[in-house]
């Protein structure tokens, strides 16, 4: 507290015009990283990183997955120790040994995957670990007051008595921010904060971040979404392959320049594709109804066709039945009623292995839990779902040489890095993990492909690559069904767009439909 108080005074005096200093830098740095270097065995995750973050600014850090952003932030938050280099906070060198010292130094972190106790209330989550005493009642009362003050100051409205699991994702994230502020964070690190948010929720988050900045907090935003960087940050730093390659004033840069800095070459931000040439119907869904494990109807009497040589996109805010629809088509979830035809043959009730034999490939929404076994080595994942194929060993046996050989071929063809089929899958970056899944599903030359969130948590270079493969599949006469919560992705890839809302298909538009039209449909307002 002792260090904050003069700063605050300084701030007030300057705001009030009592103090006019002609400093070389307008604001003193909140964080300085000097020569940070970190290796994990052979991997040089951070190379001599220098970074200065001005107090009271929003500083974006972008870079592809695996560029070293997360490592750098983990060092700042005390998860790892740097091999070399120094961290200065408000000009003073600090040794951040663990997250407790980070918190004590005024650093708060909002993780990509929330660290909340699902069945606790907002208030309980916020005070968790800072209860203040053996008996709860006193702590609860003061926490409630403090929470109220924070909510008022920063416009972070959340009902303190709501249970976390009943809150929408956007509100859960606000709880994470409140948690950090409650612990006195002056510097907030947000790791891919909009990955789970709807566009409206993301807008709200940005509003909150602006208020926080204007109140003097410093915000570090880690993302790979260039649009966010342009929309919200003051300064942006670009990382590539463990190095900090550039820092720019956001106002003085462009999306194209940043993309090029990130990838190290020019990238196509929009996919180029020719007109679709649809053939016969390959996938047909009729009056499909799917219930979740609690018996709630998630997909409600849905019918549509996907033809050979076209991409049908399903747009919708996450949680409107798209996931259940995909799982039902892929044979993972049993439909409650209705029919599915693959190439004219009834397919409802067939298990995923049988569907693969019919020519259905599935790139699942969640690569961590479905598409990959993270503890497996890469080559083992390259046959997941196809492991019974005779190519990978006769009869009951597995032929490791044959599997490794085809894994190496896929690695080469899809530029999966590092090119090591014996590496544990968990040690690949998100983009490369997704490429492992995409390679596995596309290289079997299926008749139709169903895809969920093909580029979630995937870097720009890999997005471009995966999008191209999807278009190639279409041009080769495959039927492609695409589910994504990224409206841009749906619009740039799809030939036809179906919008799902509350389990129903509420409308169909051509691939050229405007963002606004679709947005209204996704919100259930227009049809």
């Amino acid at each position: 507290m002792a260090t904050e108080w003069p700063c605050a005074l300084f701030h007030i005096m300057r705001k009030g015009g009592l103090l006019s200093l002609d400093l070389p830098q307008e604001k003193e740095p909140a964080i300085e990283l000097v020569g940070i270097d970190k290796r994990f065995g052979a991997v040089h995750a951070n190379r001599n990183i220098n970074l200065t973050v001005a107090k009271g600014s929003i500083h974006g850090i972008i870079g592809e997955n695996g560029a070293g952003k997360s490592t750098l932030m983990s060092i700042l938050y005390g998860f790892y120790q740097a091999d070399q280099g120094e961290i200065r906070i408000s000009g003073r060198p600090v040794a951040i040994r663990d997250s407790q010292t980070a918190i004590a130094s005024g650093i708060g972190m909002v993780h990509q995957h929330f660290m909340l106790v699902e069945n606790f209330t907002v208030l309980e989550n916020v005070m968790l670990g800072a209860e203040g005493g053996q008996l709860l009642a006193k702590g609860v009362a003061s926490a409630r007051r403090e929470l109220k003050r924070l909510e008022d100051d920063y416009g972070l409205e959340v009902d303190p008595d709501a249970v976390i699991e009943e809150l929408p994702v956007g509100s859960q994230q606000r709880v994470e921010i409140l948690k950090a502020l409650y612990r006195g964070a002056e510097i907030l690190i947000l790791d891919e904060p909009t990955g789970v948010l709807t566009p409206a929720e993301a807008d709200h988050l940005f509003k909150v971040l602006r208020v926080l900045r204007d109140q003097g907090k410093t915000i570090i935003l880690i993302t790979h979404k260039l649009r966010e960087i342009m929309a919200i940050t003051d300064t942006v730093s670009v990382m590539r392959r463990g190095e900090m390659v550039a820092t720019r004033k956001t106002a003085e840069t462009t999306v194209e320049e940043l993309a090029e800095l990130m990838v190290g070459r020019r990238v196509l931000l929009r996919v180029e594709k020719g007109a679709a040439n649809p053939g016969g119907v390959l996938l047909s869904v009729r009056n499909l109804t799917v219930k979740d494990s609690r018996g709630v109807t998630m997909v409600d009497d849905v019918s549509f066709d996907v033809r050979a040589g076209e991409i049908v996109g399903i747009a919708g805010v996450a949680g409107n039945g798209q996931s259940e629809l995909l799982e039902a088509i892929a044979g993972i979830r049993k439909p409650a009623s209705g029919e599915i035809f693959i190439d004219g043959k009834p397919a409802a009730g067939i298990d995923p292995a049988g569907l693969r034999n019919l020519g259905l490939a599935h790139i699942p929404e969640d690569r961590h839990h479905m598409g990959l076994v993270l503890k497996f080595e890469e080559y083992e994942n390259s046959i997941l779902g196809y492991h019974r194929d005779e190519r990978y060993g006769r009869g009951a046996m597995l032929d490791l040489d044959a599997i490794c050989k085809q894994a190496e071929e896929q690695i080469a063809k899809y530029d999966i890095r590092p090119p090591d089929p014996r590496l544990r899958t968990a040690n690949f970056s998100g983009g490369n993990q997704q490429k492992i899944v995409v390679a596995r599903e596309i290289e079997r030359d299926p008749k139709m492909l169903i895809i969920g969130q093909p580029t979630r948590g995937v870097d720009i270079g890999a997005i471009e690559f995966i999008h191209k493969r999807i278009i190639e599949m279409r041009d080769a006469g495959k039927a492609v069904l695409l589910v994504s919560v990224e409206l841009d992705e749906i619009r740039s890839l799809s030939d036809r767009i179906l919008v799902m809302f509350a389990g129903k298909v509420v409308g169909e538009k051509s691939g050229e439909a405007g963002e606004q039209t679709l947005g209204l449909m996704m919100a259930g307002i227009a049809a």
Partner: protein
Amino acid sequence: MSTASVPLPAWINYGVIPLLNLMLALFFSGLVVWAIGENPFEALQLLLVGALGRGEGIGFTLFYTTSFIFTGLSVAVAIHAGLFNIGSEGQAYLGGLGAALVALALDHYVPWYVTMPFAVIGAAVFGAACAAIPAWLQAYRGSHIVITTIMFNFIVSSLMNYVLVRLLIVPGKMAPETRTFLEGGQLPKLDWLIALFGGRLGAAPLNFSFLIALVMCFLVWVLIWRTKLGYEMRTLGISPSAASYAGIRYAKIVMITMLISGGLAGMMALNPVMGASARLQIEFVGGAGFVGIAVSLMGRNHPAGIILAALLFGILYQGGAELSFDMPAITRDMIVVIQGLVILFAGALEYMLRPAIVRLYQQVAGGK
């Protein structure tokens, strides 16, 4: 950040850490021995000499090792599919009935090497049968396998009491056990194996089932890492959702895995029943099923590790028996304490030293 996810080279994971854990266990055992007024170094020496000093000692050690390999494999196979089979004890017990029935039926007519394959099958089938009901309940009804396999240990125990006391007992005898098998129902002793190293087996019951255990280690390794079934088991064990995505049927894999696991536990019975006492006795398993859990844990569920861990427990059993004979102050219960300490440090506290070793390793590796 937790260091559990930091990868370490295999020689640290499988060499240094278990060794350090073992040394810690020995250290604390030494303290216990010292506390009751005996010399810990002398005790350790007696233990090692008792277990490994003479041909007969080695024979006993390997006899125990054989049992622990079977039960260790049984636990490990289940763990690879994400199932915790605590019922190896009961499965081995019932396996004994299978082996005994084969031996009783055939020993009059054929030599041991004809009986043996049927006995192996009989033991495995009975062991698997004992695992089948918990497996079915887990696969199709969602009853937790830990609970059901534990309960089956008691059920089998009561069942075997009934079978031995009422049905298989030799009329007119007091002991609840079958008649002694003839030579055609016994597994031969491995005198030649000990003789190879210049020792004498003496009265030690080391028998042919030791070789069966080693073959099973190889077969389990092939199963887990070289077959499609093993691939499916491991997928299910690590990620049930990925398994369902891949079209791997949960119920089928649970059933098959548990039948294999129960079968391996059942085969353990070959060793004491047909190899040592040549009859089915009450409570012949004597806790080997539970030791199998520790063996599997300590051997990192890998057949090679299981052999080493089983050997360690074999040494503790045999050496411990010798020790309590030579040092009367160290009772049989003390030996159990020492074994418990080994299980505690090697199994339950497996990760206690890991963070420190990770840090040390990172410093050394990072400084390169």
